[in-house]
């Protein structure tokens, strides 16, 4: 598939999903947590996509679930990116012990499997949307640090950074004017990958039962709630799973295009 076509399809899919998430209260035919159908009603009989084991309308639940997944993924990834990149630039500029302390802290964070780490933290802090997002942000920031620290090191050694040092510039100047703009291409790629992995991560947590708590559910939670239906030959749990996959694919489609565009040098007007 050509790059342009991938982009168009991805944008269309993502826009649809975003619209669904934003307009969920308007679009949903029924309140998501009320039992309006008979349990396990087939599609068409009870609502467009049928009903779950408690007789709740599947379409309404998926619309609201998309909302949860979108919000949690976007906020967590943005936070993770900000934390990781700031630490990387600070480490790259200051070198010495600051670099060592940050580097080892990230090493420790990375050496523990993320899902186990998340289980522990959520068990201690209690599950809420805020703790969930913060935990994910901290855990995923380590990958952003890993990717941008070497780039920050290279950029910090550039002579234009030295010119800034001779002038006496402060940290925010380097961060926003000298280094960050040169990181954009590699950051975009990582941000895209991060969005998909964050979506998968929060879905896994919810699937394990420590993510978004019932009766609310995100897409991962919906897969879990309806997992039993598979054994009765129904495809209901595959719909939210399909939504997760679609989200990841279209995010990657957009990122591919962006990376291709930004890796070219800025041109003459």
């Amino acid at each position, binding site marked *: 598939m050509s790059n342009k076509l991938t982009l168009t399809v991805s944008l269309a899919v993502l826009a649809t999903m975003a619209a669904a998430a934003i307009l969920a209260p308007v679009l949903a035919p029924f309140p998501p947590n009320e039992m309006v159908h008979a349990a396990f009603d087939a599609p068409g009989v009870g609502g467009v996509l049928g009903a779950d084991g408690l007789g709740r309308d599947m379409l309404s639940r998926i619309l609201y679930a998309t909302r949860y997944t979108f919000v949690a993924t976007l906020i967590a990834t943005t936070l993770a990116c900000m934390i990781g990149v700031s630490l990387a630039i600070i480490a790259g500029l200051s070198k010495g012990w600051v670099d060592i302390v940050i580097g080892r802290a990230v090493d420790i964070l990375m050496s523990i499997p993320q899902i186990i780490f998340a289980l522990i933290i959520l068990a201690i802090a209690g599950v809420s949307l805020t703790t969930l997002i913060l935990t994910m942000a901290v855990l995923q920031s380590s990958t952003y640090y890993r990717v941008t620290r070497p780039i920050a090191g290279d950029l910090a050694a550039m*002579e234009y950074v030295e*010119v800034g040092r*001779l*002038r006496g510039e402060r940290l925010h100047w380097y961060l926003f*004017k000298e280094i960050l703009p040169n990181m954009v291409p590699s950051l975009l790629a990582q941000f895209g990958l991060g969005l998909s992995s964050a979506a998968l991560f929060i879905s896994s947590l919810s699937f394990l039962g420590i993510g978004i708590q019932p009766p609310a559910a995100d897409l991962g939670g919906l897969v879990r709630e309806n997992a039993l239906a598979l054994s009765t030959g129904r495809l209901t749990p595959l719909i939210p799973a399909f939504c997760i996959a679609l989200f990841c694919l279209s995010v990657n489609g957009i990122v591919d295009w962006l990376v291709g565009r930004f890796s070219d040098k800025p041109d*003459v007007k």
Partner: protein
Amino acid sequence: MSGNRILSIDNLRVETQTGVLLDDVSIHVDRGEVLGIIGESGAGKSTLALSSIMLFKSGCRPTAGSITLGGQSLMELGTAELETIRRTKASYVAQSAAAAFNPFYRLEDQVTEIPAMAQKLTSAQRRRMATELFEELQLPDPQNFGRRYPHQVSGGQLQRAMIAMALINQPDLIIFDEPTTALDVTTQIEVLRLIKKVASTHNCGALYISHDLAVVSQMADRIVVMRNGKMVEQGPTRQLVDHPQTEYAKRLVAHQGDGSYASTNGSDETLLDVRNVDVGYGGVTAVKDASIRLGSGSVLALVGESGSGKTTLARSIAGLQPARTGEIRMRDSLLAPLVERRSFDQRRLIQYIHQLPDLALNPRQTIRDVVGRPLSYFHGLRGTGAEQRLRELMDAIELPVAYLDRYPASLSGGQKQRVCIARSLAAKPDILICDEITSALDPLVEESIVKLLTRLIKDEGLSILFITHNLGLALRFSHKTAVMQGGRIVEHGDTRAVFEQPQSDYTKSLIRAVPQLREGWLDGFSANAA
């Protein structure tokens, strides 16, 4: 005649999709002859030289003309036949030997790679072949030289090892592509003498590419002057040097300078006083007990070969690399060793310009951002005030105001360096530290930058610490000169005195090693040195 002709290129035209690289170029080389090719970067020198073995950069192809090497027309040959010809008939000596050798293999294995590809050779045979050439090229301890790895020998030695590699298949044609440009002057002399000797004893033809007319005039029998892919002038060396016909060739010859000194307009008032400074990195002391003085309104040239500590000393003055002992004074105030400890005004008054403008300009900032930042930082200028000053600065560096909205990538090397100069001028400094700012530029571009600086000294009342390895430039541009060797200042005085009555042996050898246009200079040098 035709039996002696090794290479002839006739009416060659090389094109890319977007433009013409070479246009109607004809050259020829006879056995035992060295043809010099001179021109600025981008003039098509390397393209022309490499076309003699049918090597073209990707996207380029010859569209007209003919290339004949050793009696064989190359245009019609297939890839396999061309590879055989490249392996047996021609060799290439690149500018940077350090980049041309594989750091993981011993020198003798790399030098003898070509014959070993053609026939099975034992390692003893390979060593014997290499040793012979190492001996001829006067490398130290030729028996064991080949056992070493590239990083274990000096730059000059590595360049000679590369010449050995070029000679090993007894080629008809050797292409020397700026083979001494990366070397210091004193090292350059050795390599030049060897190349000249080798070219005559091996009775092959040679193409010698350089942007340095003095070097080419010593090496070549005939010279071709290239510009923008066209042949500007061609003729026997002496004729071209003594009676250049075209305007461009005249400028090239004139650029070599008439040996006149910069007029002294500097006052005796000491602006910058560096006393007994030691600077080091870790356990290494790169600058030892150095003292220099920069008078206000004057230019102090700091000359020396690579590794002599020039840049380290300059960086310690700028406060980038703290001096361990000694003191640096600007007018009456003592400067802190580290720039972070210096005052706002002290940081403003000393501006540093780097060697490579590519690294010194952020690729994602427009020229307006680059030059505008010191205006707002040091002088609080914004809006129309800043715009006014930006226009003045662009005028001062002789670039169109429209360039303000461009990114560095769309500027040439010389233009980028001008932008760096504008950025430092924006601070309204007293002192400019120029660290080899013209060494990456072509001679005529260098000339224009130096002219610009000369004007700025008057207009803006600047004083300049000018670091260079180019003695000719120091002579033309500076009022005072300090010579560094091994981290020490070995000579410091009026430029005229330093060049006319050098006191230290090192300064004498440096001055002698600067290539000259004079006929027989290189030969005379070898006799002197022997």
